[in-house]
């Protein structure tokens, strides 16, 4: 995934939902980090699965793409890969820019 600032276009009528949505993603990232440290692959898989659902639905295609990688990594028990994907997720959320249209 890219580590540059990413601009995501979101529908104007979803604007009210976005602050909560992003707050939940940040909590999710924190939970992922803790689960990774504990090697709790089942929890990581569930979070990845949920990311797949809520990413594209809101217009955040990269969240869905990362979610799939995380879910696959958890299924494979590939901790190294998961560390990379969770890291990428953190970068993505840090550099995220949103415009409403």
């Amino acid at each position: 995934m890219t580590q540059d600032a990413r601009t995501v276009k979101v529908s104007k009528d979803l604007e009210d939902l976005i602050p909560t949505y992003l707050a939940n993603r940040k909590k999710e990232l924190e939970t992922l980090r803790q689960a990774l440290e504990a090697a709790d692959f089942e929890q990581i898989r569930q979070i990845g699965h949920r990311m797949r659902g809520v990413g594209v639905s809101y217009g955040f295609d990269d969240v869905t793409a990362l979610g799939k990688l995380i879910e696959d990594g958890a299924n494979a028990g590939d901790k190294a890969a998961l560390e990379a994907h969770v890291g990428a997720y953190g970068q993505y959320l840090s550099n995220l820019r949103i415009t409403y249209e």
Partner: protein
Amino acid sequence: MSDLAATGLNVAPQTAFRVLVVDDDPDMAALLAAIVEAEGMQAEVMCDGEAAIASVAGAPPDLVLLDVVLPGSSGFEVCRRLKAGPLTALIPVVLVTALEDRESRLQGIEAGADDFLHKPVRREELVARMKMLRRLHETRRELEAQRLAAEVEHKEALHKALSRYVSPRLTDRIIGAAGRAAPFRTEAERADVVVLFADLRGFTRITETIGVHHVVDMLNEYFSVLTEAAYQHEGTIFNMAGDSLLVGFNVPFAQPDAPARAWRTAMDMVSRFAPVSAEWRARFGVATGVGIGLCRGEAIIGNVGSPHFMSYTIIGDTVNTAARLMQMAQADEVLVSATLYESIRPLVPAGRAHAHGAVALRGKSEAVGVYSIKL
């Protein structure tokens, strides 16, 4: 102004299309609800299966968007239960799921889901499906409204047709019992009843002197007057033959005040017929009046006839006695059996009743106490 409004019809306001969103992920639930509301529909959110079922039972929505992976009962289970309920089976359910395998899809079909939507949700796809299901729902609702209107129209026509033959209360009972137990018991029953027999005095003279076409019109006029009086006091007309009318009270419905009803019916019959009789006298030169017999006692009520023609009728000594009293009654006279007279005595105007004493009636071994009331 709309076409409907222009007609002056009272059009019920269109209620909002209600969508129940069931998802344990607050972000997904909020998103679905926002899309629903952006389309002018009303959204309600539930985060688990049991809460969803309780919500549907309390206020059935028009559509359910149902996540599959839920805490407690799964979306499949919730869907299965909704589709098994007679009141909820027709509510469209769309399973919204990230499960892509064939097995999950089959499970959804088996649970009765009407449609599937994959996560991540594509807004255009969700909106298109909701609009399609809304159109279907509205069409179904329109058809149901039309069916109900046709049913009401049919019942009204049936009521109108039946009311020509039986009292309005009996008509209601027959129509109300459609599909349930027959309103008339197959087996006969005994009941304490009050029987009123009325008959037209001077009818023989009418048939001898007046043209047939007039006779039928006159009979119709006479029976209309008597029938209205009987129905006003909720009597049940059992028979109309020649110029006589048989009316029962306290049957088939309990009427604790049956004697009073029968007496008032008799008075009404005489008073309503008086102007008709006066008009006939002026037009045709015939003297007419109503002769009435009233008796109270036990009678047998039941269906008599063949499988092809049934008559709901009333038979027994009480009926025979009322018939005999009617035959003896003069124009505008009511002959009442002594047993019934005791029940209506306070209602009879002072000085109108005269005791005949015990009268031997044809076909009866014992004499019957009779009172004459001239109206």
